[in-house]
């Protein structure tokens, strides 16, 4: 991840020189580079998910009934809880960045820990949902119930396509969450060791950006997957 590249080094004090990687002239330049790098990385992420959203859009337009049918088998309540959990985690992350900026080390560690916990809650709920889909043979592939008794009047192939997008998109999102949780975990340890200060806390800001991005992706995924309005 990017944050390893912004000059995190085991140091005792906070001498400027030790925070500054050899190839930068000053901390400001180093911060600008890290920040632009993270934003550019997020742009690639947007396109990464963008390809999937395009595919989703094409097939939802082609097979509206199949997608609506597939969506019916998701648990909107769990999805809503998860959305709330993630939005809360964004809040704790934002507060953690603020804590780092103002130098409140204990608040920082506490908020980062809260973020991790919320992230884990999200993943646990997601795992539970996946398990439920396995139980009901709604996972695309050979075990997919093409003659599912509940799929009435809809081509099961189209429902399977819906579930394919459901699984690819949510698992890719979950993978990002896992990476995020690990990264925040490392930040928590480093914060507890007192590596960050109001002068230098770039990694926290960068991971914060990443965390918010992953949340925003979910904010798009939730309505697209869970809240397909069935008019017919």
């Amino acid at each position, binding site marked *: 991840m990017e944050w390893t590249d912004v000059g995190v080094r085991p140091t005792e004090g906070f001498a400027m020189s030790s925070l500054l990687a050899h190839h930068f002239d000053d901390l400001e330049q180093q911060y600008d580079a890290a920040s632009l*790098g993270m934003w550019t990385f997020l742009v690639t992420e947007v396109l990464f998910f963008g390809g999937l959203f395009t595919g989703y859009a094409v097939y939802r337009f082609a097979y509206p009934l199949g997608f609506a049918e597939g969506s019916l088998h998701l648990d909107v309540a769990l999805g809503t809880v998860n959305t709330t959990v993630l939005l809360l985690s964004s809040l704790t992350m934002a507060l953690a960045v603020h804590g780092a900026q103002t130098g409140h080390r204990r608040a920082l560690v506490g908020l980062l820990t809260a973020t991790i916990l919320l992230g884990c809650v999200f993943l646990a709920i997601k795992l539970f949902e996946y398990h439920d889909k396995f139980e009901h043979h709604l996972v695309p592939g050979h075990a997919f119930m093409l003659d599912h008794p509940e799929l009435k009047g809809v081509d099961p192939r189209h429902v399977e*396509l819906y579930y394919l997008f459901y699984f690819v998109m949510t698992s890719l999102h979950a993978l990002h969450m896992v990476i995020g949780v690990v990264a925040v975990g490392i930040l928590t340890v480093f914060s507890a060791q007192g590596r960050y200060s109001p002068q230098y806390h770039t990694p926290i800001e960068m991971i914060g950006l990443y965390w918010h991005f992953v949340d925003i992706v979910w904010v798009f995924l939730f309505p697209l997957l869970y809240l397909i309005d069935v008019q017919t």
Partner: protein
Amino acid sequence: MNEARIPDRHYLNADFSVWSWFFTTDHKRIAILYLISITLFFFVGGAAAVLFRLELMTPPGDLVISETYNKLFTMHGVIMVWFFLIPSIPAVMGNFLLPMMVGARDVAFPRLNLLSWYVFMVGGVFTITVMVTGGVDTGWTFYTPYSSTYANTHVMTTAVGIFIVGFSSILTGINFIVTTHTMRAPGLTWFRLPLFVWAQYATSLVMVLATPVLAITLALIAVERGLGVGIFDPALGGDPVLFQHLFWFYSHPAVYIMLLPAMGVVSELITSFSRKRIFGYSFIAFSSVAIAIFGFLVWGHHMFVSGQSMYAGMVFSFMSMLVAIPSAIKVFNWTATLYKGSISWDTPMMYALGFIGLFTLGGLTGVFLATLAVDVHVHDTYFVVAHFHYIMVGGAVMGYMGGLHFWWPKMTGRMYPEGWGRFAAIIIFVGFNLTFFPQFVLGYLGMPRRYHVYPEEFQVLNVMSSAGASILGVGYLIPLGYMIWSLRYGKVAGPNCWGAKGLEWQTPSPPPTHNFEQTPVVTEEAYDYSIPEASPG
């Protein structure tokens, strides 16, 4: 020149341990690692081409069977596109030069840079192992539903390899964008940047924006093959043309990933060997950006006959015409730069001039292909093959070779043998044209591409092409030989053997680990040859 000597301490002799190479974060050493890797891949991809050109000497399939032939051209395409052309100029010359050209001590994220080489090698070794031991026969384009359902070769593993390699491009792109934005030396404004940097910047934008789409598309193919779900197979409810849209949304801009850096190299070569400021600096700079942007809006011109709507075809045809204009602007400006210059015919310049001629031909035939009615006839024929080889080899590889010769003394501290250099340049130029020009004729005659067996009336032109390929092959082996030779026996180059402008020439050859003794301050525009440089002797 006789006082020129190799400095005592430089990036190559800073540390000799294997560790110091494999865990280096020095952008110059990473460039060398890339140089060695892609040279290896280039000759593997070239060997595949030699084999199928041999097969095509005769109309029937008598040297290899169809399965093997199909695997050979797939291997050639996959290796040359993803493991040679895309990393070639950006990862070797971009890595080596971009930080020096902007007056920085390294790229913005040196460890990320090293990671990108590892990612590249993992993807490369993985893919090539799969292709050599098992093989894949879908063509480098992986068209569905053939690749997703029908092919029974190693599609999934190859897709995974290319998926991995994509991240190497993305990481390099991010690094270059950030380096150009944040690491420029004092006084080095955007419009004082060398045009190579502009070109690299535009390339990086394309890498960052296009590669993720390819990655996700290949991932979907792997999922489709793994689960048997019809994302792209119409028998299962999918849409095969959606694949083409996603694929070309990456792969057309990818052409510019290969070509734009070569244009940047040529801009450097033309001014350096004309000892003259480039003509129309801002036009060349902005045309790079224009190409990068327009390049994203023309992907549908690969699909005029694949059943997309007629009106979509017209829009894409129109956009493709527009993308030709910035290329034309570049060619005219390079030509005008020669006027009242002081032109020397050194090897790099011969490649640069060859580039302009071949690129002009390649670009103009691109206009044929952008024309709807003509494309209907020549689409998927050898005309297309010839066209993109004029762009990819006549353009990108010529630029790469020119740049390699130009900066070789900077990289190694020693000169390549000039006579051999010119000789090889001529051999490559002749061999290239003999290989690919007949393919234009073949294409208009109607010979489809990827044909293992072909009707007899096409034989004469195919034999010419194969003969040219053998000359071209020799042409590429000669530089390999003398470049290695020059590492030990080449003349010592000195810091600025060409009398060229640019920050990279103001530091010793080879440069010290941190590039400059002290951060340079830039006070003049790029290529200001009105202030005479110290004569190289």
